[in-house]
């Protein structure tokens, strides 16, 4: 189960994924991202309520990061311990801007 809430204001979008981001739910987030990415200068991912992220979820984050590198910036905030561990193990903590 994944709920995606988002706010968009003056080229800055904040996405709040809530629940589990895995093979089943990752395409939902990918679709939501593709819809808002054009014209965006700042993308914020608030992971406060994200319980779990699998490799399929990481792939969506990586795509978003690459897209935002070309047109602005992306940051990730409120990362909990479980998710942070996954970021550390996979080396994602080195390529993401985590606050």
């Amino acid at each position, binding site marked *: 189960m994944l709920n995606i809430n988002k706010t968009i204001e003056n080229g800055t979008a904040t996405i709040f994924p809530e629940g589990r981001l895995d093979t089943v739910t990752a395409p939902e987030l990918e679709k939501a991202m593709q819809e808002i990415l054009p014209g965006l200068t700042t993308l914020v991912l608030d992971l406060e309520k994200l319980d779990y992220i699998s490799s399929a979820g990481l792939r969506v984050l990586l795509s978003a990061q690459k897209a935002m590198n070309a047109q602005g910036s992306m940051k990730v905030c409120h990362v909990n311990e479980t998710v942070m561990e996954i970021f550390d193990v996979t080396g*994602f903590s080195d390529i993401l801007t985590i606050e």
Partner: protein
Amino acid sequence: MTPDPMFQETEVQANRLGALMLFCSGLILLLILALTIAGVFPLKGKLMYSTTIQAIVEILILLVICKIVKNNAWWLKPLLLIGMIIVFARLDSMLTHKVAILMVLPVVFSSRYFSRKLTIFTSILTTVIFAASAFWGATHGLINLNIVTMPAGTEMIATGGFLGDAVQNAGASNEMLIRNTLLYDYFPKWLMFSIVSIISCNIARRGRSMVISQHEKDSKVARIESELNLASAIQADMLPNIFPPFPGRSEFDLYASMNPAKEVGGDFYDFFLIDDDHLCMVMADVSGKGVPAALFMMASKIILANNAMMGKSPAQILTDTNAAICANNREEMFVTVWLGILEISTGKLIASNAGHEYPVVKHGNGAFELLKDKHGFVIGGMEGAKYKDYELTLEHGSKLFLYTDGVPEATNAQTELFGVERMVEALNKDPSASPEQVLKNVHASVDEFVNEAEQFDDLTMLCLEYK
């Protein structure tokens, strides 16, 4: 007249439905018969009895035939429909306007055969036979006063007998009764019947196209399934899966297994001798699952092995593999890889980690412990990613356990994760066990923990014992 094999099953089901309809009609007739005998229904005794009993006998014969051929014979379809029309028409001739609805039953039922031609045939046959029953019923069946026209001033006196008799005694001619029945009773009924016929034809045609498209979908699914099974076998065969893998080598023992959650998966392990003294081991996990992950896995495995066979260091192998994969990776798939090369004569292990889970090491007679090695970024994620080698020495009796995230992330019905702690615990239940037994122990622990929940991720493990 043999039916299309595609419709064989649906025809048998329709025959069964027809038999059920007849059986229910038989029960209703028995009830009517009983009520007539009990005097609740004041009908023309003798004729009513013979008609009802004849109808029941006909139904019984049809049911016995259905039973004998187990609802499965090409001629059962017309037999059931004709039999049904005759039985219902017989009742219609007796009970006339009271059972008007009987006329539509055969045609509605015929739509279940999903053949428009058959429904049209049934509709025409019903029209003819019910016209005959209306003709006969006008003078023999239950009379409908609305169709009786009499010269003005005619008086009818109820004598305690039947209405029909009274009407006939009052001088109503048979000719008038028949004409009026056909015109005022049968004709409006037939108009409504024709609407039901048109709807039934439509249902039959639509049903037919649905059966055909379902059949096409089924064969497509069956084809994809058989292809997936073959793909699954090819994938399993790509991994070294004969154990012991190097029967001539007594310096080490190695066991590995892969259980994909779907037919094909993105996890893989690999091991091979680079030369007489160097054993390369790989544990990897592709992002996502299923066919896309499996395709990516095949490419990754081959590129890694080719680079390793060139005698490079683990970090160099990962760097070069990353460059090769990034060159053509528009889907942004990636793979986490742990790759290590063991110098068999000395026990020196050089390894590098591209975003993969921490390996677990047991030194000598010690316990299994998580090795928090340095991580590079996943392979395929970013061009120019850098990887570092690290080194450790395996003493005699040491073991190395590699796995993919399917193990710590196995989830039970309460959505708890199995976790690395439980995994290390399972390893330490019997740290001196053979690699094969070590894997079985972990697998058993995961199974026990997951219990009834479905295996969601691939379970892939490898264990090396340095003797």
